[in-house]
C-alpha cells in the first residue's frame, strides 16, 4: 500500500484479556518498528525488525509483550493479560533507510 496501515485503530479491552495489534508496512521496506506513546510523553521504543535478522526486543517492557513479523512483511504485536498501564497509542513505522521512518496512524488501546 501507499502507507503504513495499522489495525484496529481503536481497541477497548478488559483487564486481563489478550490483544493483538496489526501493522502492514510499506511494501519493500525492510525495517519495521513498534513504539508506544503514552499521553503527554514521547515515543517509547518497543521492538525492531530488520529483514531476516533476529529482532531487537530490548524495548519490550515485560514478557507479556511479544511481536512477530511474518514473511518480512506484516507484523503483529501481542499483549497478554493486559493491565491498565498498557493503555497507550501503539505506533508502527517502517523504513528503507535509517534516516526516515514512515509511521502508521496507530492503535489506541484502552484497558478498562
Amino acid at each position, binding site marked *: 500500500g501507499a502507507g*503504513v496501515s495499522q489495525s484496529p485503530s481503536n481497541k477497548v479491552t478488559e483487564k486481563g484479556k489478550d490483544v493483538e495489534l496489526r501493522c502492514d508496512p510499506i511494501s519493500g521496506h525492510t*525495517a519495521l*518498528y513498534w*513504539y508506544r506513546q503514552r499521553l*503527554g*510523553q*514521547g*515515543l*517509547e*521504543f518497543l521492538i*525492531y525488525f*530488520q529483514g531476516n535478522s533476529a529482532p*531487537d526486543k530490548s*524495548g519490550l517492557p515485560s514478557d507479556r509483550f511479544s511481536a512477530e513479523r511474518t514473511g518480512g512483511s506484516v507484523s503483529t504485536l501481542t499483549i497478554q493479560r493486559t493491565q491498565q498501564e498498557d493503555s497507550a497509542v501503539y*505506533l508502527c*513505522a517502517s523504513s528503507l533507510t*535509517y*534516516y*526516515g*521512518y*514512515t*509511521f*502508521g*496512524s*496507530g492503535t489506541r488501546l484502552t484497558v478498562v
Partner: protein
Amino acid sequence: TQLLEQSPQFLSIQEGENLTVYCNSSSVFSSLQWYRQEPGEGPVLLVTVVTGGEVKKLKRLTFQFGDARKDSSLHITAAQPGDTGLYLCAGGRGNKLVFGAGTILRVKS
C-alpha cells in the same frame, strides 16, 4: 529521565509570530530527526540532519544540528494556524530512534 529534553513543553502563540523549539541531550547522536504529529495520526518526518553544525531550511522552518551533535533547534518564522501540532525530535541511536517528549504548538488566528 528523557535522553532528549525538549523545550518548551507547550507553546501558544498568535499567527505571524516567530518561535524556536529546542532539543537537548548530553549524548551524541548520529543523526537528528524532527517530526510533526497531529491528533489521531502518526508522526510525519519533517527533516533529518546528520552533520554537526548543519542547517536545513524548509520554507518557513529552519532546522539546526549542534556542532557537537548533541542538540538541535527548530525555528518557525511567521507561524500559521496550520503549524499547530506536536513537534518531536528524535536522535539516532544504533538501529533505532530515541524520541523526546515533544513540544505542543498552538497557533491562534
